[in-house]
């Protein structure tokens, strides 16, 4: 399944993986989480990421560098050249990224299986609404009884 929107270029979706690992590799996801959690506000250089990751596990500098440039190619990071080094910036917050990839996977599902998927989704939405309305009616009845009492 391919997702291409807002400059995002994600080519695989693995249902058995948790969170953003459904669309990113392990190292890619680890780097992005690191950037979102610690380094989102300032630009990040490969060395910053490498130093943090190296403490967790022995990893080659070039592996981090190539993974970060792949993330830039996929549209998750923006890269700027400052002096003699490359500085990376996240293009989206974590929530924005999740919103985009989830939204487009659903859209893709609808395009691929519009008939059955839409019918099921409508049925699900209708049952959700009915349940919500029953609860609302119960609450209204409770409040009305209290008011009358």
């Amino acid at each position, binding site marked *: 399944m391919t997702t291409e929107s807002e400059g995002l270029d994600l080519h695989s979706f693995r249902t058995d993986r948790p969170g953003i690992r459904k669309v990113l590799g392990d190292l890619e996801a680890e780097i992005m989480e690191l950037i979102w959690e610690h380094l989102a506000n300032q630009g990040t250089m490969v060395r910053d990421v490498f130093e943090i990751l190296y403490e967790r596990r022995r990893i080659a500098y070039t592996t981090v560098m190539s993974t970060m440039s792949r993330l830039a190619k996929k549209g998750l990071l923006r890269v700027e050249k400052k002096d003699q080094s490359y500085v990376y910036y996240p293009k989206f917050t974590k929530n924005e990224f999740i919103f985009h990839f989830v939204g487009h996977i659903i859209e893709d599902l609808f395009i691929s299986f519009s008939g059955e998927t839409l019918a099921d989704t409508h049925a699900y939405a209708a049952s959700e*609404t009915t349940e919500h*309305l029953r609860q*609302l*009616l119960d609450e*209204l*009845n409770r*409040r*009305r009884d209290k*008011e009358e009492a």
Partner: protein
Amino acid sequence: MHHTLLGFLSLVLATFGSALTMRMLNAIDEWSWRRALQLLVLLMPPVALGLGLSLFHHLFHYLCDLFSLSSPAWLESAFSTWLESTFPTWLDRALPIALGIVALGAVCFGGIRLILMARVMSRSGACHHAALERYAHDVAQRLGAVQPRILVCSYDHPLALTYGIFRPTIVLSTWMIEKLDQHELEAVLAHELEHVTRSDYLIVLLATVLRDAFFYLPTSRKAYRQLQQEKELVCDDLVVHATRRPLALASALTKVWLHRAETPRYAMVGGAQLLANGSTLTDYRIKRLMDAPLLPRTQPSRIRVLGTSLSIVLAFVVAQAISCILLLAVVGC
């Protein structure tokens, strides 16, 4: 071609004036004031066409003749050449005829809708309901409203509406009588009676014809949508003040919505739209009623409403006169 051009300019001016009025609406909270301006937006296109084509066009032609005024010959000929080369000649006849047919169609459609409604109701075996009529009589007296006819039609889905011209008629379905408790039913009836008090049945009829006649203008569609939605909110507020039971109306709305959710075929034909049109609006109305504080009923200043409406109309007439003068200056008296 002059008439077509003037008509087109009038519509452009009306759209511009309507868009400005719609922007003004964002800063206005009072319901009556908003309704007056929404109606003004809907009335602007026919008024613009009427003023431009019937009044100003002939008036300025007469003044031109009286004072022997004429536009420069080179300007007139240059404009005529541009006009002939840019627009096909058939447009001169086709455009006014098309607009006329649409407007006439809208008026006929409005009439047909009203006649059909009356016929459907007379054939549906709708009958009077003594208890409801007594309650309606009391509420109508309290509100100072016209005593409407109350009919109950045998229909197994929610239905509550007001129609008519000279004598408004409130129609409720048997579903409403059977499924709603006494307070809910009274709240629904009070809601419909408020529509009668505000003459919503006439205003909606006029607004629908105007919307259909100028359906191609986005401002007309937007003003109509706002008018339709806001009349429900106003009547909800008025019911809260009249019955002091906002939760009863909220409960009635929830039951109607629940029925619609449980009966998809019914929801698809839009049968419940009259009491609860659109789930987003219904949801909003229920939440409003659940949080409704019983505020004192305020009446907007009539002078303010009248003043603002007159200022807009005056500005619009002046703009229309200027556009007409400019056009005549270019195309020649």
